[in-house]
């Protein structure tokens, strides 16, 4: 049984994906499908990791797979509200250097707003 799920929300022009459960090699395809669904409507994507309990290297790979496309289309994937243990995995690999990883979802959304207002 998959113990991973993705919830969709929009906040203004920003798509918010809420990740729940454990993201590993088996559930990575679900996040992949979720991001693919988002891209046609908006490339401004915020990942809310408040309820993400675990992430494996394959899970991290999903972000890597799409970030280039999304940025080429003028969007971004920002990651917010990660639990410390999950953040540690991002951090060990150096993801904070590649991604906007912020504490709150509102902050992430706001960064999109300021980016577009400039």
């Amino acid at each position, binding site marked *: 049984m998959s113990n991973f799920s993705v919830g969709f929300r929009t906040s203004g022009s920003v798509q918010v994906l809420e990740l729940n459960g454990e993201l590993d090699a088996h559930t990575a395809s679900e996040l992949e499908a979720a991001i693919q669904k988002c891209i046609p409507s908006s490339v401004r994507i915020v990942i809310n990791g408040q309820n993400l309990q675990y992430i494996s*290297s394959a899970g991290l790979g999903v972000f890597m797979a799409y970030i280039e496309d999304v940025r080429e289309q003028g969007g971004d994937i920002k990651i917010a509200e990660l639990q410390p243990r999950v953040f540690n995995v991002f951090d*060990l690999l*150096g993801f904070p250097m590649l991604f906007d990883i912020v504490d709150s979802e509102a902050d992430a959304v706001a960064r999109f707003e300021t980016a577009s207002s400039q």
Partner: protein
Amino acid sequence: MIYGFLSSAVGGPSMFGIGQRLRTWLLALTAFVACVIAAGYHVMSMAGSAPEGMVTEVVYHALVLFAYSVIYLFLSDRLRRRASTSLRAFWLPILVGIALITVHYGLTSISRPPDLPTIASSSVTFGFEYGTGRPLVPATVFNMNAISLVAATFAFILLLRFRDLVLVKRTRASQRNWYLMLGFMAFASMLTFLTPADASLNIWQRLAMVPAIGFMVVNSLRLSWIVFLSMSEKLLSICMSLLLLVILGGVGIMETGGGSAAFDVPLPYVFIKHYSYPLSVFVSLSVVFGILYCTTALLSLIFHLPTTSDYQQRVGELAAMHSLTNLVGQVFDSDRLFSMIVASPVETGAGSAAWLSIPDRSSPTLAPHVVAGHSIDIESVHRLVDIPALYEEIAETREPILMEQAVADHRVTARPGEGIGSLLVVPLLSRDELLGALFVTKEVSHGFERDDTEAISVFAAQAALAIDNSRLFEERIERERLSRELAIAREVQRKLLPQSLPVVHGLSIAASSVPALEVGGDYFDFSELDDGRLAFIIADVSGKGTSAAFYMAEMQGIFRSLSRLASSPSAFLTTANAAVGPILERSVFISVIYGIVDPARETVSIARAGHCPAATAGVDGHPRLLRSGGLGLGLDRGEVFRESLHEDVINLKPGDVFVLYTDGVIESRNADGKEYGYDRLLDVLRDNRHEEAHDLHRAMTDDLNAFVGGSEYDDDMTLVIIKWHGIEVGNFSAASKSDPARIQEA
């Protein structure tokens, strides 16, 4: 009496246990002898030397009836095998009927006196003695015997062949009606026993025919065979029954003498009547039945002509269903299965074109795609109909969609005249799962009748079952293929890891790597450099499976070739990142720790590229993690990687130990779902830091196994321990000799 016996014997098994063939020929011989005796009697009677009187008459007629009963049995034996098709039932009566008319006409023409002025002036002219019917010339005797034989044979064959038709789909009652008809025919015939040839039938003899004719009518309505005929067979049957009717008419005229003008035989002088009155009545009744049956068959054939196509469609549906049912077992070729599914509704006429959409499993959104079409081009389907919209509706309602006027629907983009008048979309459901949708079209609007939609629904149910089976089968094949692949990948992985550990002065080394069931991409290795230096690496490819094993092999190649060239860990990692970056898929990266031990300078330099930080402990110090910055390989191909990278250079003191591991160790979980974690790792290291490398290694793996217990966490787990003992002055080799390197593999 004889006929009663005869009818009970018809169709029965061989009598008295005599072999079938022997019995048949015995019957033929008996009939032949009896006929010869009868003919002999006629010759004697012509010559006037036959004994006269009642007894002779009775014996003669009994002999004749016996002879013909035997002939009937003989023919019944010969025609025992049923005509293979209904059509063939007509052939033999037609042939024998033509033969009969030819023989009759031929013989009477030849034996007729050339100067016959008018009909029926003198009995002598016709070769019979007026009143008694005694033959007067040899030609009469011959004609009488020959024509009777052929006429009776015709009647018998007609009955035997029509029996096959009447008894198609036989029941007890229909079989009884048939034999009752024969019985009453025989009975009515027997009533004319000893009636003079020129006498007409009396009232009782006529009344006795009523029940026989009644059963003839009943039997004439047994026409089930007509339903099974195709259109062409029906047309042929109509022709043949018409021909047979004409022949029967001719024979009827002949037998009753009614058309004397046609055959030049006056009413009282019918040959067969002179031969045997009962036989002639039986033949006449048979002809009456033949005419009745041919008439009803003809009418029924004509009335059934318009419904033939409906019946054929029903038969086609059954056949298609049958082949689909068979196909459920044949799941090796899904393309064939799909084309079979779309062919069924079209070939049975339930629709004019059909195609099948199933979800595309390779796309994450499972978008439907058309896998097979019949009588329609797969490419053009997308142009004509909005398949995703219809599929979505089907997925929601799980009910068929019937569009009587398809072009009026907004989801159908076809223009009128493009072949989509009405459209039926049926979901293929199996075990509550939507496996696909079957689209069937008709060229006209309002084209689907109730039986069409029902038939298509049944097809869809069968098709769903077949697809489901096929899918289960494919999944199983796929699983087996994967497990074979994984076995190969595991083997490759095992061979990529060092088979023995290097022996270096002042160091003890222990290492192990437990591969996951699904094969991960863990890698560790050593390389002895110049000046007694030792390079070590531990790496973890993200993801699992064969691709991870493949990238691990890449990593090994890079390590083996680059380690001797790179001057420092950061130089190695930077070059490795540039080398491996273009090869990796976007979603894949590799975390690495690379280090160089320099025994001469008593230093270790170490750099981390996204990997779990190495743990280190001194003899008296607290254990700590070497968490310098550094991106994983493949995450960035340029500046960011180089900027992030940081190299630590540590001065070694004897007793210093370095622990390298992969995330499989840290993330191992026990039955409660709790992770092993860094803290516990550091605790075990602190408690066992005084042990030699392989004892420390054992202590750490024991603790890990104790923690995990029986839970089923599955990732590669790699653990490498490097311990610095220091080098005694003047005895360079002592330290390492006493502590041989150890490799442990689970």
